[in-house]
């Protein structure tokens, strides 16, 4: 099957007073139709920047695509002009943001915000768009949709606002949905409702989803594939069984071990990764995880590792898996 989205060697930088921040430093991945892919990593690892660059939503005043390509259904996004992007955004690619409070327009009614895309991309009349909007709100589980559609964002609770955002994002039945931390701001019981809804979308509409999150529980629940990012680079990819069962990159191993397990004893210390991620104003020359890695070797300091294929679909960027490296890590 052809790839719906292909990101190759993507490099994105921001220009600040302090200098150039290399937020994304060479990212590669591909997504097929109907696939749910998680991008995980800590704040500042470049996961949101990657997502926004797919939609070309980065501020042009202080950021730039330095290298690479983003192909959506064969079309080069980086070269696309604003008019072409307007045809793609909200139509073929939908996006859900983390904070539903700040990403809806507080001054206009939900009806207008849902209708915007429908009228533009689907040429619906005002009335058609309103009726279809009500249907969408019902679909995402908003009670009394016909009445609620005339309300303003502040009249909804956090969970309901997130549903409204999802309704807007899926209005034109996009083939790709980018969800940037869609449940981080929500309570667990509401998070469960939203996850159920996303699963249903994937099953009913065969929408491909890029889910950006730092919650590994959410990933295990919803996704087919995982992309682990660290300091602007992809350090490991694979399907969820591989990544959860047998993480290979030392950073992924650390992440997996630092979540408390249900069977853990209380006097046992939680595993923690010492130190903090590097500053991307001055990214390290070699492997970015070098200073925090307990398996670090001499070469890691000065040379950045390439992606090595490990299992069927699992790959990790780590010198330990170089064909000539002595097997230093015994993974369980």
């Amino acid at each position, binding site marked *: 099957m052809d790839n719906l989205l292909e990101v190759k060697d993507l490099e994105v930088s921001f220009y600040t007073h302090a200098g150039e921040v290399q937020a994304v430093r060479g990212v590669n991945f591909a997504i097929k139709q109907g696939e749910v892919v998680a991008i995980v990593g800590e704040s500042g690892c470049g996961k949101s920047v990657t997502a926004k660059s797919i939609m070309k939503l980065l501020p042009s005043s202080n950021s730039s695509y330095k290298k690479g390509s983003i192909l959506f259904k064969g079309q080069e996004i980086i070269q696309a002009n604003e008019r072409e992007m307007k045809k793609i955004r909200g139509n073929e690619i939908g996006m859900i943001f983390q904070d539903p409070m700040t990403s809806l327009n507080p001054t206009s009614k939900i009806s207008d915000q849902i209708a915007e895309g429908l009228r533009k991309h689907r040429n619906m009349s005002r009335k058609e768009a309103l009726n279809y909007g009500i249907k969408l709100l019902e679909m995402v589980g908003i009670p009394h949709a016909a009445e609620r559609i005339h309300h303003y964002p502040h009249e909804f609770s956090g969970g309901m606002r997130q549903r409204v955002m999802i309704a807007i994002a899926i209005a034109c039945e996009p083939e790709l949905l980018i969800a940037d931390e869609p449940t981080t701001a929500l309570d*667990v019981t509401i998070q*469960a409702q939203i996850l159920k809804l996303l699963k249903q979308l994937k099953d009913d509409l065969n929408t491909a989803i890029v889910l950006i999150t730092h919650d590994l529980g959410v990933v295990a629940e919803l996704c087919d594939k995982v992309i682990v990012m660290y300091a602007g680079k992809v350090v490991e990819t694979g399907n969820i069984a591989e990544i959860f069962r047998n993480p290979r990159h030392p950073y992924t191993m650390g*992440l997996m071990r630092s979540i408390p397990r*249900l069977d853990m004893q209380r006097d046992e210390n939680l595993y923690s*990764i010492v130190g*903090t991620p590097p500053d991307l104003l001055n990214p390290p020359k070699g492997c970015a995880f070098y200073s925090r890695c307990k398996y670090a070797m001499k070469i890691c300091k000065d040379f950045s590792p390439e992606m090595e294929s490990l299992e069927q679909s699992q790959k990790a960027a780590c010198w330990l898996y170089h064909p000539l490296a002595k097997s230093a890590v015994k993974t369980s």
Partner: protein
Amino acid sequence: MNVVEKDMKKKTPLVEIKNLSKSFQMGGQELKAVNNISLSIQSGETVGLVGESGCGKSTLGKTVIRLNRATSGEVLFEGDNILSLPEKSMKKFRKDMQIIFQDPYASLNPRMTVEELIGEPLSIHRLITGKAKKDRIKELILQVGLKPEHLHRYPHEFSGGQRQRIGIARALALNPKFIVCDEPISALDVSIQAQVVNLLKQLQQELGLTYLFIAHDLSMVKYISDRILVMYLGNMMELADSESLSREPLHPYTQALMSAVPIPDPAIKRERIVLEGEVPSPLHPPSGCVFRTRCMHAMDICSKQVPTWKEVKESHFTACHLYN
């Protein structure tokens, strides 16, 4: 701490909360944020406090150490009711009870250096000055895993996890006995959360601290707490030691809460209880049991009568008509 020691200390709880309520006035209406909470916390114990946003857990934490004025009820600290004290005599108790806040970005004054931040409580209580104070600050910064050279920097020069360490050093400065940890790790990244939780546990062992640990992340709360109190709409739903609460949650709300936590293991597939609807407004809480509007087991009696707080199993309490 071994069993014998624990039993001995059981006689005098460090903190005893009795029928504590806190209401706020909102446009002439009364919002009951915390409703009739009773809880004893033993010295050296960690009690976890969980519930969704707006359930009153932070309000409870702040009311217990009198950062809020309680509407009614008592808080006994080593036997003294601190809620009835005049503000002046409160000062000596303030030393013993501290708080660590959720947002390490908002809770540190950006214009103060780390040295000033950690030294501030020492100056306010006029405990030590000069070299002794400098030494104490140095000791504290090492205790929380930072370095003495960090002392002359400002909060913006630190990451979230490091800032939370500064917040912890500040809370420790006065040698408190009791610390309210108000979601201390919610704003931090996963790999950093573990660092801070380990630090809190280690400090507890070294200094014999007692924690009221507020969080919404159940797996982390289960890991750090001896006992867990579950709140919903300002009311107590269930209280038990963390083992039995996670093994056998009794209240339907606790069951739903437990099952809502995504398990970081793709091999485990389970039927989860997805609660319908949302938390009702605390301005108009449902009659009877406050949870009944979202409860799958709701019966007639639930809307008519407030369920009583009952010890269903040994040291396992809940308020639910299913167990009457």
